[in-house]
C-alpha cells in the first residue's frame, strides 16, 4: 500500500538533493535548475497532501507556485544574461561584490 509517507519521503530526498546542488554547483544556471528541483519537491508534498486530505487548496497552491516559478525563470534567466554580458561568466564565485 502506498501511503502519504512514501510521497513525502521522496519529496524530502529530492529537496535535499536540490539543496546539495544549490550549495555545491558554481554555474548559476545549474543552481537555478536545482532551485526548480527543490520547488518541485515541495509541489509533490502539496499534491500528495491535497489528495490525502481531499482538499483542493493544495493543488491551487501548486498552481500558484508554478506561476511564480515561471516568472522567476523569466526574470532569473534575464538576470543571468545581464550578468554574462557584464562579466563574461555565469559562475557565482565570480560575483562576490556583496561584501565589506
Amino acid at each position, binding site marked *: 500500500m502506498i501511503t502519504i509517507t512514501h510521497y513525502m519521503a521522496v519529496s524530502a530526498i529530492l529537496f535535499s538533493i536540490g*539543496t546539495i546542488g544549490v*550549495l555545491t554547483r558554481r554555474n548559476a544556471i545549474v543552481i537555478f535548475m536545482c532551485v526548480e528541483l527543490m520547488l518541485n519537491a515541495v509541489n509533490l508534498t502539496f499534491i500528495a497532501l491535497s489528495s490525502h486530505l481531499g482538499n483542493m487548496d493544495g493543488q491551487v497552491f501548486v498552481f500558484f507556485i508554478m506561476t511564480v516559478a515561471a516568472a522567476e525563470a523569466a526574470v532569473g534567466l534575464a538576470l543571468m544574461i545581464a550578468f554574462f554580458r557584464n562579466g563574461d561568466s555565469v559562475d*557565482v564565485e565570480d560575483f562576490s561584490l556583496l561584501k565589506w
Partner: protein
Amino acid sequence: MYDKLWLIPLFPFIGFLINGLLGKRIKNEKVIGSIATLSIFCSFLVSCHYFLQLLGDDQKVHEVIITSWITAGPLHVNWGFLLDPLSGLMMMNVSGLATLITLYSIGYMHGEEGYFRFFSYMNLFAFAMLMLVLGNNALVMFVGWEGVGLCSYLLIGYYYEKQSASDAGKKAFVVNRVGDFGFLLGLFTLFWSLGQKGVWTINFTEIAASTQLLENGGLIVTIITLCFFLGATGKSAQIPLYTWLPDAMEGPTPVSALIHAATMVTAGVYMIARMNGLFAMAPDTMMVVAIVGASTALFAATIGLAQNDIKRVLAYSTVSQLGYMFLAMGVGAFSAGIFHLLTHAFFKACLFLGSGSVIHGMHHAFHHAHIHDDPQDMRNMGGLRKKMPITFITFLLSTLAISGIPFFSGFFSKDEILWWSFASTRGHWVLWLMGAVAALMTAFYMFRLVFMTFFGEQKTDARAKDHIPESPLVITFPLMVLAALATIGGFLGVPHVLGKLFGHVPNLIEHFLDPVFEHTQHLHQLHAHGTAATEFSFMGVSVGIAVVGIGVAWIMYCKNPQLPGKLVAVFPKLHRAVFNKWYIDEFYDALIVNPTKRAGTVLWQIFDARFVDGIVNGVAWTVKGVGKTLRYTQSGYTHNYAMSMVIGVVAIIAVYVFN
C-alpha cells in the same frame, strides 16, 4: 467680588511679554519705559481697588480659584489666589514700590545697553513677586519664589559682560538654590506628614486649619519649619546664606532697591508669616529663627561699619534689617515683623534710590571729565548736599527713619520688635541686647554714610566736582514719595502705650493683621507683657542708642575727620577683618566652594572621564570589535549565504523535531 484678582499679576506679565518680545524693535526708550511703568501701575490700581474693598469687608480672608493645575493621587493643586490682610499689604507694597521704582528706572537707566531687557525683567519680577504673595497654596508660592529668584539672577547679571556681575548673579542663584532646596524639603515633609493624618493638602488655609493634627512642638513640625526657615534664609539673606546679597549690588541700583531691599528679600519673612500657625507650634524653630535673626542683625551691622562702597553699606544694612524682621518672627511678633517689613521697604528703597541718584550724578560728572574713578566709592564724595538738595533731604529723612529717631517710621517698627524681643513670652534679654547693639551700629554707619556723602569737604576730583547735577524729576519724584512714606508711614503702627498717651491712636496695622495672626498668638500665648513704664523706658533707651550712634558718627566724620584713620591705626587687624567682611566669603570658599570644585574636578577626571566615558566608549569599542569579527562572515559569496540559510533551516527543524 474678588474674582478679578488675577488681573494683578496679569498686567506686569503682559508688560513683560510686550517688552520682552517686541522691545528690541520698539527701540524708543520712552515707549518701553512707559509700557513697563503703566503695566505695573495698572496692577497697582487694581490692587488699590481690592485693598480698599478688603478694608471695608467684614470677612477678611478670600480665596479665588482660577483653574485646576495638578491632580495626582491625593494631591490637588489649583492656580488660585488668597487675599487676606497679610497678602493685601504685601500686594500693595510690591505693586506700589514696583511702580515707583520702574518710573525711577526710566531716568536712571537712560542710555543703557539693553534698555528693553531691563524693563521686561522688572515686569517679570513684579509678576513673579505678585504670584508669590498672592498664591493660595505653597506650590503657586513656589512658582513665584523661583520666578523672583530667576529675575534676581537675570538682573544682578544685567551687565553680564562684566565678570564680577555675572559671577555675582551666579552666586546669588546658587546660594538661593540651597534655600529653595530647604523650601521644597519642608513642603514635601509637610505634605507627607499632613497626609499621614488624612489631610493631603498644600493649600495655606487648609494647612492653617489642620496644623493641630500635628504634634505641638514635635519633631516633625520642627523639621518642617526648619526646612522652611532654610528656604527663608536663602531668599532673605540670613546667616548662613547671606553672602549673595552684598554681591548682588553689582546689579543696577533700581534692582537693588526693588528686589534686594524692598520686596524679594522679604519673601522669607512673608513666608514665615504666612505659615505662622505652623511656626508657632515649633518653639525650637522659633528660637532658632530669633537667634539667627538677631545674630544676622548684629553681624551684618558690624560689617557695614567699615565699607566704603555706598551700595555695599546699604546692602549690609538690608541684611541687618532683615535680621530684625526674623527676630520679630522668632519671638512671635508677626505683625511687628510685617510692619517693619513695610517701613523698611519705604526707607530702604528710598535710600537705595537716593544712592542711585548720587551714583548717577557722580557717574555723569566722571564721564564728563573723562575720569575713571569709582562713582560708588564714598571717599570720592562729600559735600553733595548743596549739589543735590532733593536727594539729600530725602536721603536724610530715610536715614533718620532707619536710625530709629522718634516719630519716623523706623522708630515705631524697630522699637516694637525690640520690645517684643525682650518682653514676649518667647523673648529673652540677650536677643534684645543684640538688637539694641545692632541698632546702635545702624545709626552709626548710616550717619557715617550721610556725613561722608553729603557733608564735609568735597573730595571729588577737581575736574569733575563742578559737573555733579541734581537728578531729573523722574528720579527725584519717587524719592520724594518714598521719603514721605518713610517719614509718616510709622503712624500706621503706633504702639499701644504711645497711642494711649496721644489720646487713643490705634495700632492700625496690628489691628488690620489680626485676622491672620490673632488665632495663632492666642493659641500659643505669644504676647508681650510688661508695664507701660517698662515699655517707655525701653523706648527711651532705643532713642538714646540712636542719638549716641549719630553723635559718634558726627564726631568721627564731621568734627574730627582724622579720628577714623587713627582708630584704624590702633586696631589694624580688627579693621582689616571688618573691612574684609570677617573673611566669611573666603571662609565659605575654603570650606564649601573649593572642596566642591575639587570634588567636581575629581569626579570629572575619574568618574566622568574614566567611568562614564569608559562605558560610552566601551559600548562603541565592543560594537566595533564584534563588527570587525563578524564582517568576515560577509564574504560576498552566494554559497555562504545559502549555507547559513540551510543551517538555519536545520536548526529550526531541530527545534520542531525535539519538541
